[in-house]
């Protein structure tokens, strides 16, 4: 049985569970808002309302989509901590373990690691705080951490105040590429968009299958291994015949991209990895 952890409103969870249903794969969904309430766990079993207990030993894989801490009381907090322990140390097959997702807490930390690979370049990146700067060439400003920020403004000639630490990164025009890498499977798509941040485009983006050079694919797999990730969504930009690395997302929202493709390639790869026995 596959355990799916997340929140009901998450479309990615919805897409993955839909894929499991379609292929008659046995799964159980743990709504993290319900953990410690209608759903509970102990050292041996999971307890779901109206169902027989599910033994931890029957779980072949866990798809972890823990994105945000739900509101919780002390008991629920204990359950969440216990769940983290299972995910980090006790279940054998987890995509991804919480401890491995934490590199995304610091984009510059991740960029430093990514800069060890030669098939891509890192855009010129500054970390600035408590400083007023006058920008002279096109830059974008974005959050330094895993907190999402909308990056739709390109600063060209203006002054900008930085208070809390944030990134001021060279603006690279070009084709956005999202690469989903799950174990050794790679699915890359190109995103042609009118917006700087395609996630917030006013018009529909054109999404198409993209063929990456072999060395870029190899480096993405090697980067995942370095970060400890089994599943990631790597953002690249292709500009002037060069690839630029932006970030590796450890909980990629892949459903949006997959819905534009002819087959559920990413769900298939995930399901295959989660059904596999890991030693």
């Amino acid at each position, binding site marked *: 049985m596959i355990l799916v952890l997340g929140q009901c409103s998450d479309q990615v969870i919805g897409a993955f569970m839909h894929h499991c249903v379609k292929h008659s794969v046995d799964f159980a969904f743990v709504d993290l808002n319900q953990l410690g309430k209608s759903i509970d766990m102990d050292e041996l079993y999971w307890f779901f309302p109206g169902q027989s207990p599910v033994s931890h030993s029957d779980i072949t894989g866990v798809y972890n989509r823990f994105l945000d801490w739900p509101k919780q009381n002390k008991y629920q907090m204990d359950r*969440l*901590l*216990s769940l*983290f*322990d299972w*995910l*980090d*140390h006790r279940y054998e097959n987890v995509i991804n*373990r*919480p*401890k*491995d*997702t*934490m*590199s995304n*807490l*610091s*984009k*510059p*930390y991740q*960029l*430093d690691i990514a*800069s060890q690979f030669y098939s891509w370049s*890192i855009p*010129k*990146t*500054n*970390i*600035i*705080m*408590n*400083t007023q*700067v006058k920008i002279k060439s096109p830059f974008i400003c974005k*959050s*330094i*951490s*895993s*907190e999402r920020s909308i990056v739709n403004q390109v600063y060209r000639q203006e002054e900008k105040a930085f208070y*809390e*630490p*944030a990134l001021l990164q060279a603006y690279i025009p070009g084709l956005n590429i999202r690469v989903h890498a799950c174990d050794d499977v790679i699915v890359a798509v190109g995103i042609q968009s009118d917006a700087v941040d395609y996630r917030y485009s006013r018009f529909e983006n054109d999404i198409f299958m993209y063929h990456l050079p072999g060395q870029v694919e190899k480096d993405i797999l090697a980067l995942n291994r370095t*970060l*400890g990730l089994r599943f990631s969504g790597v953002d690249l930009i292709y500009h002037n015949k060069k690839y630029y690395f932006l970030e590796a997302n450890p909980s990629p929202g892949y459903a949006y991209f997959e819905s534009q493709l002819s087959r559920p390639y990413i769900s298939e790869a995930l399901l295959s990895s989660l059904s596999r026995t890991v030693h």
Partner: protein
Amino acid sequence: MILFLTHEKDIFAKQCYLMLKYQYQVPTRWLSWQVFKKQSQCHMLGHQDIFNAMLPSPQQIDVLYINLNGLNECNKDNLDMKDQRYHLHSWLGFLMWYANQVKYCLNPLKHGVFSPGVWSKTNIRRQAHLCGLSVSEHRRKRTEVICSILGNQIITDDSTFLRTLGHERIKSSFKLFNMLELRFGQLFYDESGALCKLSQSIQYQISVPVIIKACQYMLSKLSYYGFQYLHVLNTNDGWTIGSKERPKIM
């Protein structure tokens, strides 16, 4: 240069800082979170320069002592939960990068340490067992002996306790620290030598021997172009080049 980034009430760090600065006379700086968070800083990734800053660049720091307790306390006032979290994560995002740029960090800030699962009691107990330590089963009040771990040294006020603990368990204690990627911290044992808990910082029994050992440990990580700094000499009754090494010219 040794840099301390911590909260105002970190007595252990403050004592180390003062001893390093005034007794050992090495370049040392102390910045509380409150002061650090107000510094103007501009770092360029992949470059050593730091612009318009009162701080040394990470490449100039030999040892960074970092204690994240209190980081969130000097936040802007009246922030809602979402803004508070963003603010905290922004600082953690910066510090995680900064700590990994310096030569030696106490304790290291690798990304794995941010998962709550790593520091759960269950995991600490499991790792302790794996290292060969017995774990105390008492949940409440018991006598505890505190041992400070400083690199490869273990120090306690109760001098007879280390004999109780024995060579094997001391070795296991270091192994546990290595597994958790800790260089500094404290272990709490019951009288029989079973482990009760672990702390990632040094908060109790901050005695002179602990401060001296900690300073010596940090000094051993200072490097000046190929030699290692040990300490300032307090006397001048010796020779750099002895008289035998200075032959008379006939």
